[in-house]
């Protein structure tokens, strides 16, 4: 009986295996293309399917044979990348990565990456250089060498916005809030005047995202109105560069937030963890700071909210003005959040860069995003219309170059969304010196801060959350500032930050000169 069962189990396995052997995927034909250059490349975005139609088609178009190595999900991708990079045989020719600052330094030290400047200059069309401004390249340029280029560029300064539930405003007869006082008033009305009309006191004026740790961006409407972001360095009135958490204005913002929380205007999961899409779509919060994409009617969160409340309307508004009339949106870092490098595994780095350069065209962009015209999409009234389903699209491998490909814009955004992006970019870029992303490496240039960063963050989060939720007295704030200067060498940190800030300006001028002379493409 038992033996029979085991036997049948084995039979099933063999059957399944033979079934799979039968439908073996197509092997890329390599007979006629001895000249095709082989390029292995790591992928993070897109459907991450190996040996797809797209992969072959891309190879045909660029006269190359691609070997895509799929990186795993976000929690494990760095582990995989490190394993690939420490194995000289398995190292990809083209590496996509993000973060990994320390590893990147080690790759450069170990000679695993190739300097891209001469290679980019030698390409036929210079597509990549055409796209790269001096501002984009500056953060990655060091000592005359460029070992990585930013990809997924295309954001123009800000990807977030303050949102208000327009339908709630209308229902309660309120105006769009402009100042902090307005903001509190609207939040109060949203909390207490039953804007959803269900007769229950179950709404909150203000809420926001938390993915395991407090995301201070979620509180931007208040913090930025007072001038500084707690988790960013910025140029203070006195000319020094300070951590936003330590300036007196931040204390004022904390008091405002504390009073709002005390009144019950802030949705509490902003401190304990939630999912912003769920939070917005379940019709409980009236104002929040989040992705501009929520404004798009095709966006998932927007759709889900409308499915729940048909007349709901998310309205992005200008940033809230503080007591000094200052206002700002979250500025995106310059350059990008992810990069590609060419590794020493590439036998002919110039040929690899040539292929990459040819990749950044509108033609390849369309192939990546939509596939082949007539087969996978058609153009109606100047608009691109897909003719295949989402799953077919994935199985074809469309979108595989997501987060790698950059090039000319494929389709224009709807006008109201383009306008929103433009407006927010303006309000964000105006604040870049107060809410500052360092272009040069913080790791290399601010060792004192790096030493204490985790502890400072932990303490800031603990104290700030404690104050807002009323578990800690506001005097704890002064103790935090005290600890910052005395325990965590705050004065030294500020000195390093100020030096770095000033050096950036000088070095950027130098780089600009070099860029204009060597890299700029007319």
């Amino acid at each position, binding site marked *: 009986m038992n033996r029979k069962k085991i036997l049948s189990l084995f039979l099933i396995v063999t059957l399944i295996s033979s079934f799979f052997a039968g439908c073996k995927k197509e092997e890329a034909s390599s007979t006629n293309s001895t000249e095709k250059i082989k390029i292995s490349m790591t992928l993070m975005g897109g459907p991450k399917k190996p040996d797809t139609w797209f992969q072959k088609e891309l190879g045909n178009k660029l006269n190359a044979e691609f070997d895509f190595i799929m990186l795993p999900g976000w929690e494990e991708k760095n582990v995989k990348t*490190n394993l690939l*990079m*420490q194995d000289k045989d398995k190292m990809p020719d083209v590496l996509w990565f993000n*973060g*990994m*600052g*320390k*590893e990147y330094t*080690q*790759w450069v*030290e*170990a000679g*695993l990456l190739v300097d891209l400047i001469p290679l980019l200059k030698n390409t036929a069309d210079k597509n990549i250089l055409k796209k790269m401004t001096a501002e984009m390249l500056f953060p990655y340029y060091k000592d005359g060498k460029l070992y990585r280029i930013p990809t997924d560029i295309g954001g123009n300064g800000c990807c977030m916005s303050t949102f208000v539930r327009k339908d709630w405003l209308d229902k309660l007869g309120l105006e769009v809030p402009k100042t902090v006082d307005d903001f509190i008033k609207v939040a109060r009305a949203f909390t207490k005047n039953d804007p959803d009309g269900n007769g229950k*006191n*179950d709404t*909150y004026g203000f809420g926001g995202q*938390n993915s*395991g*740790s*407090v995301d201070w961006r979620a509180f931007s409407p208040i913090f930025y109105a007072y001038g500084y972001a707690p988790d960013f360095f910025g140029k203070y009135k006195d000319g020094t560069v300070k951590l936003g958490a330590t300036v007196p204005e931040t204390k004022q913002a904390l008091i405002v937030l504390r009073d709002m929380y005390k009144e019950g205007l802030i*949705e*509490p*999961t902003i*401190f*304990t*963890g*939630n*999912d912003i899409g769920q939070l917005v779509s*379940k019709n*409980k919060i009236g104002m929040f700071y989040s992705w501009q994409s929520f404004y798009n009617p095709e966006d998932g969160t927007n759709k889900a909210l409308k499915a729940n409340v048909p007349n709901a309307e998310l309205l992005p508004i200008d940033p809230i003005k503080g007591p000094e009339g200052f206002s700002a949106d979250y500025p995106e870092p310059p350059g990008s959040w992810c990069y590609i490098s060419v590794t020493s595994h590439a036998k002919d780095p110039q040929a690899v860069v040539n292929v990459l350069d040819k990749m950044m065209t509108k033609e390849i962009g369309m192939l990546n995003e939509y596939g082949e015209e007539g087969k996978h999409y058609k153009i109606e009234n100047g608009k691109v219309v897909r003719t295949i389903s989402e799953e077919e699209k994935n199985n074809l491998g469309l979108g595989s170059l997501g987060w790698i490909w950059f090039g000319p814009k494929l389709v224009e955004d709807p006008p109201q969304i383009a306008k929103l992006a433009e407006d927010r970019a303006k309000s964000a870029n105006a604040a870049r010196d107060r809410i500052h992303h360092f272009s040069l490496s913080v*790791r290399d240039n601010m060792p004192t801060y*790096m030493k204490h*960063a*985790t*502890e400072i*963050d*932990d303490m800031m*989060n*603990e104290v700030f*959350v*404690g104050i807002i*939720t009323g*578990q800690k007295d506001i005097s704890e704030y002064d103790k935090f500032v005290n600890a910052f200067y005395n*325990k965590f060498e705050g004065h030294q940190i500020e000195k390093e930050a100020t030096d770095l800030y000033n050096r950036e300006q000088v070095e950027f001028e130098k780089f600009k000169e070099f860029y204009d002379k060597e890299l700029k493409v007319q």
Partner: protein
Amino acid sequence: MSEVNVLMNKKIVKKKNTSKKIWANICKYKYLYLLILPGFIHLLVFRYATMYGSIIAFKDYNMFKGIFESPWVGFKNFQDLFNTPKFPLVMKNTLIISLLKMIFGFPAPIILALLLNELKNLKFKKVTQTVVYLPHFISWVVFAGIIRAFLNPVDGFINEIIKVFTGGVPYDFLGSKSTFRSLLVVTDIYKGIGWGTIIYMAALAGVDPELYEAATIDGANLFQRMFYITLPSIKPVIMTLFILGLGGILNAGFEQIFLLYNDMVLPVADIIDTYIYRKGIKEAAYSLGAAAGMFKSVIALILVIITNKIANKIGEEGVW
């Protein structure tokens, strides 16, 4: 002179005897050595051949230079670990959380197994067993989402009930320092209790039913039978699992805590592993991680060996 000679002769004879005896022993047990051979080869190849990697705890490890080429730093990584300002706190939290889990989480499956054992309807028993082991298969990522959906103070199911009794005042389970550890223990038990009973159920299968019959005839009631027959018969398994479980005393459950903790409960929930993880995001703390790993291992090994010794001494069966 002659005395010395005799002594030396004796020694040689003894030596010959012992080596002969060893050889004879090996011959006698040759099949046993044969049985252990595959496992032993596996041990050498997959465990000891890679063991050199643990030296990175004493090195400034650079993965791209290689383990051997990375420079030695002695005990610097350990000093860094013990000197981080948060180390006493995270160490304390690790111990408290894992002790709580041990105290409440260890007996839980035993009690459940005893209760399951008393179910008379075999079908019902099997179904119950199968159902209670289901939560083990829901990963923490998903389970954390469910916990949030249930406990959040805005519209969580549990809080809707609480609000009825408190007049609309919800309780923030995830944001409350005083109950967060209990939450960790309860969810941990919830997820693991059914899975934990399996091994006890296997052990209970070995108990002779005649023992029960005899005891019943002698007038033992159900509870007496439970205490004097069932429990002693699974005691060896309990001891084994307890001693081996002590080895995990510094693993308070990274994934669970990582997915549930937040800044409001950080002072009571931050454990060694989560702290190292947060440091790692900022500065790729491989050496620190390796030092923490080795520290945990040494503590675990010592604890397990000591408890095993004690168990053997007081007449209980240790693990070895």
